[in-house]
C-alpha cells in the first residue's frame, strides 16, 4: 500500500526541501520505490537540491493540464536506484494546482510508487493546502525557535481540519516531528529552544533531530541530498529519521555537545 507523505512547516526556510530530498533518497536507499513531488509552483527548488535541473522538460503542472504524460515528466535519479523526481513549473503559480488535477496525478503515482513525498511550499495557502490535502502522513519540519514552532502548531491544526482524511472523517493524518538546524551551541546558551521545549509545545512523536551544519549547504550547492553524505552528521541524522519512520528503534543522536579537546576541535575544523 503506497503512502503519501507531506513535508510541511508553515514557515519558510526551515529546511522542507532539503528534508524532502534527503527523506526521499533515504527511503529509496532502503529499497522502497519513491518519488518526491515539488508543490512549490513558481518557486521551484527541489530540482536544484536534487541536482536534476538540467534534465527538466515537462513538469507537474504540464501533467495536471494534460500537456504531458506522467512518464515524460518523471525524472529518474542518477545516483539512487528507486528514486524519482517530479519537478514543478517556475512560470506558473499555485492556482495551477487544482484539486482534481492533483488527485489524478497522485492517484497515478500511487500505482507506481511505495512512497510519494510531497514537498510543500511555505504558508498555509493554496499550494501548502494542496500538498497536504491528500497526505496519509505528515513530517512537520521545525527549527528550534518560537516562530517556527508556532507556525508548525498552526499547520498541525490545518492538517487536523482541512486534509482529505479530516474532511472524510477517516483516520487522521499521522504526524511526525523533524527538528532541523538544531544548533547545539545556541541551545546550550539558551538562545534556542531545546528538543524538550519543542516537544512540549507540539506534542507529536519525534522522528529525528538534524544538527545545523555546513554540510547541508554544501550538499545543496552540489545538488546532492545531504543523506548521501554519510560522513556528515546531518546525513546520519536523516538516515536515522528514515529508519525510525520505517519502524527501526534507534537512539536519538547529536542532542548534546560532545566534549572535545582543543586538539580534536582543530582536527574537526580542518576536516
Amino acid at each position, binding site marked *: 500500500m503506497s503512502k503519501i507523505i507531506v513535508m510541511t512547516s508553515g514557515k519558510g526556510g526551515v529546511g522542507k526541501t532539503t528534508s524532502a530530498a534527503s527523506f526521499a533518497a533515504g527511503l529509496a536507499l532502503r529499497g522502497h520505490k519513491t518519488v518526491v513531488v515539488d508543490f512549490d509552483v513558481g518557486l521551484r527548488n527541489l530540482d536544484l537540491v536534487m541536482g536534476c535541473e538540467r*534534465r*527538466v522538460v515537462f513538469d507537474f503542472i504540464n501533467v495536471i493540464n494534460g500537456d504531458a504524460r506522467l512518464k515524460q515528466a518523471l525524472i529518474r535519479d542518477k545516483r539512487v536506484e528507486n528514486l524519482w523526481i517530479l519537478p514543478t513549473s517556475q512560470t506558473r503559480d499555485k492556482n495551477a494546482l487544482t484539486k482534481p488535477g492533483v488527485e489524478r496525478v497522485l492517484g497515478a503515482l500511487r500505482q507506481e510508487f511505495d512512497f510519494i513525498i510531497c514537498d510543500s511550499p511555505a504558508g498555509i495557502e493554496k499550494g501548502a493546502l494542496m500538498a497536504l490535502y491528500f497526505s496519509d502522513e505528515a513530517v512537520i519540519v521545525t527549527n528550534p525557535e518560537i516562530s517556527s514552532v508556532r507556525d508548525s502548531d498552526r499547520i498541525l491544526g490545518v492538517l487536523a481540519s482541512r486534509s482529505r482524511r479530516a474532511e472524510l472523517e477517516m483516520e487522521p493524518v499521522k504526524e511526525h516531528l523533524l527538528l532541523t538546524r538544531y544548533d547545539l551551541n545556541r541551545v546550550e546558551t539558551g538562545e534556542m529552544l531545546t528538543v524538550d521545549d519543542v516537544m512540549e509545545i507540539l506534542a507529536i512523536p519525534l522522528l529525528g533531530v538534524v544538527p545545523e551544519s555546513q554540510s547541508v549547504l554544501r550538499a545543496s550547492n552540489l545538488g546532492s541530498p545531504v543523506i548521501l553524505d554519510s560522513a556528515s552528521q546531518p546525513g546520519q541524522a536523516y538516515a536515522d529519521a528514515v529508519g525510525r519512520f520505517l519502524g527501526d528503534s534507534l537512539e536519538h543522536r547529536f542532542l548534546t555537545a560532545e566534549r572535545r579537546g582543543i586538539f580534536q576541535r582543530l582536527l574537526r575544523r580542518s576536516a
Partner: protein
Amino acid sequence: MPSKRYRRLLASRQFALREPDEKMTVASQGNAPAPGETQAFKLRGGSYTLLVLQLVDLKNPNFFQWLLDKIAQAPNFYRHAPVVLDLEGLAGSGPFNFAELGRRLRQHKLVPVGVQNGTEEQNQGAINAGMSVFPMWRAAQPLEEPAVAKPSAEPPAKPSAEPPAKPSANQSVKPSEPPVQADGGTTLVTKPIRSGRQVYAQQGDLVVLSTVSAGAELLADGHVHVYGALRGRALAGVSGDTSARIFCRSLQAELVSIAGHWLVREDMDDHLIGRTVQIYLKGDLLVIEPMS
C-alpha cells in the same frame, strides 16, 4: 464566394475596450457612491477576438443562403458569435436598413455588435440600430491609398480610443509601419526577464536585449534572438514552424526547442555552453552551431 466575405481574425486584429482614463462622468452628478460606500459596479477593459463579416454585395439574392452554408460548417463556433460588419465594400452603395440586416443576422444566430469602415451616414445608421462603431486600429488596409477614397472611414471615436499621445517622434513612426507587421511583427524586450516570467511573441519573432534568467521562458511562433545571456528556456516555432531558429550570444539555456523538438541542458555539449550560437532544425535533429 462566401469564403471571401468573412474571415476569422485570430490575434491579428483585436478590438480593445479600453477603460477611460478618468472616472465616469456619472460620478460628478451626485449619484456616485461616497467614499467608503460599496460600489455598484466596476468598469474594466477587456480585449476579445471577434469575427469580421465583410459585406461585399448585400443585394445578392444568395447572400443569406451562402451565409447559412458557411455557418452549417461549424455551427457551434458561430452560434451567437459576436460579429463586426465591415462596410468597406459597400462604400458606394448608399444607405440601407441596418435594423433589418441585424434582424436577419440574429435569425442566423449571429450577434452583430458593431461596424467598421463605414461612411458617416452608415455609422449613424448602425448606431441607430443599436450597434457600435469600431475604430480602425491598424487594420490591414494599404495606407498609401488616397485618403479621399474613403473620406469618413475613421469614426469620430478614434482619438479617445488611441493610447495617450506620445512625443511626435513616435507618432511619425507609427503610420509608416507596414500594415503586415501589425499581424504579429517582432516583439522587443529590453529589460531583464526574471525567473518565472514567460514572454510569448505570437505570430512573430522575439528579440531580447537583456539577460534571460534561469526559470524564465521565451516562446515565439517565429525566431528567438537573445543578446544577453540565455539561462532560461527558449522555444521557437511553437506553432509548428520548423524553419524558426534561436540565436543567442551566450548559450546557458536550461532547454531549447524548435517546433516541438527539444534539447535539455544536460544533453548539450559542454563546449557549446557560453558560446554564441544559432539553433535550428535539420530534419528531426536539433542542431546547435557556434557562430564565430
